[in-house]
């Protein structure tokens, strides 16, 4: 047990020469001696300091030593301070001091025997130091215990997080599998139907005029599956903050024209058309593949939820920023869902009724836009279509999702 505790000693006597003599006897390393020439002065000191011991002269003008001691015993703060009374032998023994039960009390008699004084004081000072040291050890123990509890709580928290992550992964796998099985089912039914037709010799179902429609149906299912797998991998990369962009000079206008052309058939199937309004060229530095994903996701959503009405995409440039807007006239999005649709696996009830999917498209889209230091917003009222607005700084820097804080 380390004992680096300072012990404060209070001595009270109306005669300064007595105080000086007493202090000379009891001072020492690790001790601070406080002198008071009256009970009132002593009370003031008692308010400011925590004493290991008080040595009180009994015979004092005004409040005497016993009265001071009783006041000390009556206050919680000073109740347990050991007291040594200094008395003229035999003179005040008939005074009934009450308060022995609260703390140690001892007597010294005048004339003072230096050896008796020092040994008594030593006993009380040692007692005080040991009690203080013990208290410090207890505090340390309590602190260690507290730290341990915090650590255990942290571990529990981490455990809960891990369990949650594992559950999320399982749910994710289950959902991906479910979503993949839908287009797979259609494809598989197609092949079984063809097999049956073939085995029954019903070759008219393979007539040249019917083949393009068959192939288009197959391609749609295959595209769905490829998109699901790509989304799934992108999300996995984003979770690890490993999705990166590699910016290169790109003509956004040309890219948009190519994307719109690529979606022409899909638009026809949805009974819709995509109108593109763009300058001849709009040059910037972006990750072409990722920006193509953004355009495709926004247009595919517009076709899926656009109720077959025309879809518009507009490109423009102002103040070093490229602006992309995609507008549909479809089912729209309720205001309370405007933020949620950008989270992973979030789909509005309306969107579920209109198309299947994992609910990852807009999550991925926003991540990509953020990686390009851009922003994406939506304006929409239910029943009146949706307007998605993307702003991309013309110059993007190569970075990963972690650096983008996205």
């Amino acid at each position, binding site marked *: 047990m380390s004992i680096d505790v300072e012990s404060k000693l209070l001595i009270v006597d109306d005669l300064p020469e007595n105080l000086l003599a007493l202090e000379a006897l009891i001072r020492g390393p690790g001790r601070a001696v406080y002198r008071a020439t009256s009970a009132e002065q002593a009370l003031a000191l008692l308010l400011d300091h925590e004493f290991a011991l008080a040595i009180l002269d009994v015979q004092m003008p005004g409040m005497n030593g016993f009265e001071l001691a009783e006041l000390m015993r009556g206050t919680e703060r000073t109740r347990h301070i050991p007291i040594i009374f200094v008395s003229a032998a035999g003179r005040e023994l008939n005074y009934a001091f009450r308060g022995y039960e609260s703390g140690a009390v001892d007597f010294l008699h005048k004339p003072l025997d230096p050896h008796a004084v020092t040994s008594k004081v030593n006993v009380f000072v040692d007692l005080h130091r040991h009690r203080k040291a013990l208290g410090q050890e207890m505090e340390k123990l309590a602190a260690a215990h507290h730290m341990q509890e915090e650590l255990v709580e942290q571990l529990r928290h981490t455990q809960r997080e891990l369990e949650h992550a594992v559950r999320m992964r399982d749910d994710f796998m289950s959902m991906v599998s*479910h*979503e993949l099985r839908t287009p797979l089912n*259609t494809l598989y039914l197609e092949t079984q139907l063809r097999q049956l037709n073939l085995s029954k010799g019903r070759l008219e179902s393979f007539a040249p005029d019917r083949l393009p429609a068959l192939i288009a149906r197959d391609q749609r*299912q295959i595209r769905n599956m490829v998109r699901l797998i790509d989304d799934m991998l992108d999300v996995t990369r984003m979770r690890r903050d490993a999705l990166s962009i590699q910016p290169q000079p790109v003509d956004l206008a040309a890219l948009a024209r190519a994307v719109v052309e690529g979606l022409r058939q899909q638009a026809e199937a949805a009974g819709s058309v995509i109108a593109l309004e763009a300058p001849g060229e709009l040059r910037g530095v972006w990750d072409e593949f990722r920006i193509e994903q953004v355009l495709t996701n926004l247009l595919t959503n517009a076709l899926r939820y656009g109720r077959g009405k025309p879809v518009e995409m507009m490109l423009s440039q102002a103040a070093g920023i490229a602006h992309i807007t995609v507008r549909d006239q479809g089912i729209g999005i309720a205001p309370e869902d405007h933020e949620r649709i950008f989270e992973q696996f979030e789909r509005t009830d309306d969107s*579920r009724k209109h198309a299947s999917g994992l609910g990852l498209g807009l999550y991925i889209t926003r991540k990509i836009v953020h990686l390009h230091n851009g922003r994406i917003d939506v304006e929409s009222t239910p029943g009146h279509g949706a307007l998605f607005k993307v702003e991309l700084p013309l110059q993007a820097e190569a970075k990963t999702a972690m650096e983008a804080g996205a």
Partner: protein
Amino acid sequence: MNVLIVDDNEAAADLLQELLTLQDHTARCTYTAQQALDAAASERFDAALIDLTLPDFPGTEVARRLRAGMAEGAPKLLVAISGFSAQDAAGASARGLFDHHLQKPIDIDQLSAILAAAH
């Protein structure tokens, strides 16, 4: 057999109908739970193939209502079709309610065997 099909994936429902027709069954396609219940109320079916995830209400609810109406000639054979397996959480509520559970992609031979056994 006369089979009622309900699946919101219209292409899949139409293909199933075509396949069943080729196997000398008759089949009717519906794409929502409500359409399926309306069809069952107006026509007699021997079996119903019910997708568990439907846009208006769950396939389990369709099955429950069909079972409740069994006395009035509702289909006796109920087959669940789902992207989830019968063991998965999403398929759990279907247990006990359906006679069979087929996970997508659907194997037509397996389906035929189920229909033949019930005949």
